[in-house]
């Protein structure tokens, strides 16, 4: 696997919220087209790390980040980086489904509209909607009510829609922050199946509290603890033969 293309590489990433240090020098290589899960107990910094990759951490003002995060060969903390372009290339799915208070149709084309330099033809938009909804398995259910408000959908459909709205922008990477924590068993299964169908074309990084989910729904797993990366390995290796004792104790459920 050594020749696999890398989507994200970080070198010595440290992050402070005010005076509190949340990340203590993270070095990680995340492979292109794979599903990589981030696990660890609450407060270990996994969500913080995820939110570094599209720099949404910074909206809270008192955040300091040092080190280097290379996405597609470019350090995203360089001063000439456009956050708008970065976030176009790195989509994000949140814990609670958060479709915008618009119609289903407008949710899917929202990204296209905000990034468009000139107005888009109705035909192009229609195509994008059909393609994105087909890819996420929503098309047959929703095609007759595209103008309904998205926030009235079932939670599972809302979360799928939140994934669908990323696709028209052709992102390189999709970040998922505990995407199933608001969903029931069926919803969780549906999202995991969707993740597998998207993997390959997109690099997926998923933060999860649920170790079983990391185990069944990711290629590689990263275990973090107190702002440090403890272990990064193929998922089956990490769960079957963890190298670090802290990892094995965590996956055995001794703490966390």
């Amino acid at each position, binding site marked *: 696997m050594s020749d696999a293309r890398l989507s994200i590489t970080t070198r010595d990433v440290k992050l402070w919220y005010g005076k509190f240090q949340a990340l203590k020098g993270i070095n990680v290589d995340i492979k292109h087209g794979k599903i990589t899960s981030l696990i660890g107990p609450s407060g270990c910094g996994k969500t913080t790390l995820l939110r570094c990759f599209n720099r949404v951490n910074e909206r809270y003002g008192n955040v300091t980040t040092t080190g280097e995060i290379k996405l597609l060969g470019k350090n995203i903390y360089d001063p000439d980086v456009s956050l708008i372009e970065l976030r176009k290339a790195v989509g994000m799915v949140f814990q609670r489904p958060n479709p*915008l208070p618009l119609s289903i149709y407008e949710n899917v084309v929202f990204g296209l509209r*905000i*990034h468009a330099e000139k107005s888009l033809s109705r035909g192009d938009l229609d195509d994008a909607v059909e393609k994105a909804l087909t890819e996420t398995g929503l098309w047959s259910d929703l095609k007759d009510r595209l103008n309904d408000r998205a926030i009235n959908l079932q939670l599972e459909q809302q979360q799928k829609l939140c994934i669908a709205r990323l696709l028209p922008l052709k992102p390189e990477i999709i970040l998922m922050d505990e995407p199933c924590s608001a969903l029931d068993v069926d919803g969780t299964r549906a999202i995991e199946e969707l993740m597998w169908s998207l993997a390959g074309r997109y690099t997926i990084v998923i933060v999860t509290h649920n170790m079983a989910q990391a185990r069944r729904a990711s290629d590689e797993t990263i275990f973090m603890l107190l702002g440090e990366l403890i272990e990064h390995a193929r998922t089956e290796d990490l769960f079957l033969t963890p190298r670090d004792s802290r990892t094995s104790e965590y996956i055995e459920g001794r703490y966390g």
Partner: protein
Amino acid sequence: MTGSRSTLSIYGEKAIELLIRLCGVSAIIFVFAIFFFVFREGAPILASKDFSLGKFLTSTEWYPTSMSNVRFGTLALLAGTLSVTGVAMLIAVPFGLGAAIFVSEFCTGKVREILKIVIELLAAIPSIVWGFIGLTVMNPIIQNLFHVPVGLNVLNAAILLALMSIPVMVSIGEDALKAVPDSYREGALALGATRWQIIWRVLLPAAKNGLLAAVLLGVGRAVGETMAVLMATGHAVQIPHSIFDSCRTLTATIAAELGETREHSPHYQVLFLIGILLFTITFIVNLIADFVVKGVRKK
């Protein structure tokens, strides 16, 4: 059984319950009482054969104290009220909603707290003081700036009304924007939206009902305002043809003339009828605001 309570405490509780009930109902009683009183004073004129409701609403001739030919036409006054309110809203809506967006979306920490306090201070200035400002400060400024003979006109009053209704718009508007879940902002931000795109495409549509309610409350404030407009409009009975024309409003007419009339004279009754007209206007505005706000909850 844990021992029965004393009769006193049972009755005490009942009494308090009754008191609270009374407080709740009193608001309704007061509104109806005011309604009844104003109608009782104003309605008899409708039956008088010298008075025509059509003329009242459509004539611009307001000569309530004429010896030979008394005429009660309120169209010019209504036009005065509507034009002053309209121009005031043209000024207040962009500034008020702009300030609401600024306070809610761009300010943090100290700046926000200070701004909110200052804006609320604006609401605390008594309207007579605004009238002073109109008369002594704005008047010469408007005269010099626009080279018009009279500075007491629609523009002057509208600026004052705008300043008076902005605070309520800002605070209600800010509440409406604050009520938009943060997850919408974050979702749009993560898609690469700029701040303005988030505001235009997400926040304003999401908060539109609350913002509309804020504007309508401002309108209600502006329609009902009396003292400041009495002093700043020039108090001339005419339909204004430009913002530099003087005019007179319904409210100012009542304030200026009611003290001079004999009780239950036709003039007195007509002034009350104007009160009913005002009541109707503000009632309609409030009703619209109410339906708009209800619309939020249904969706």
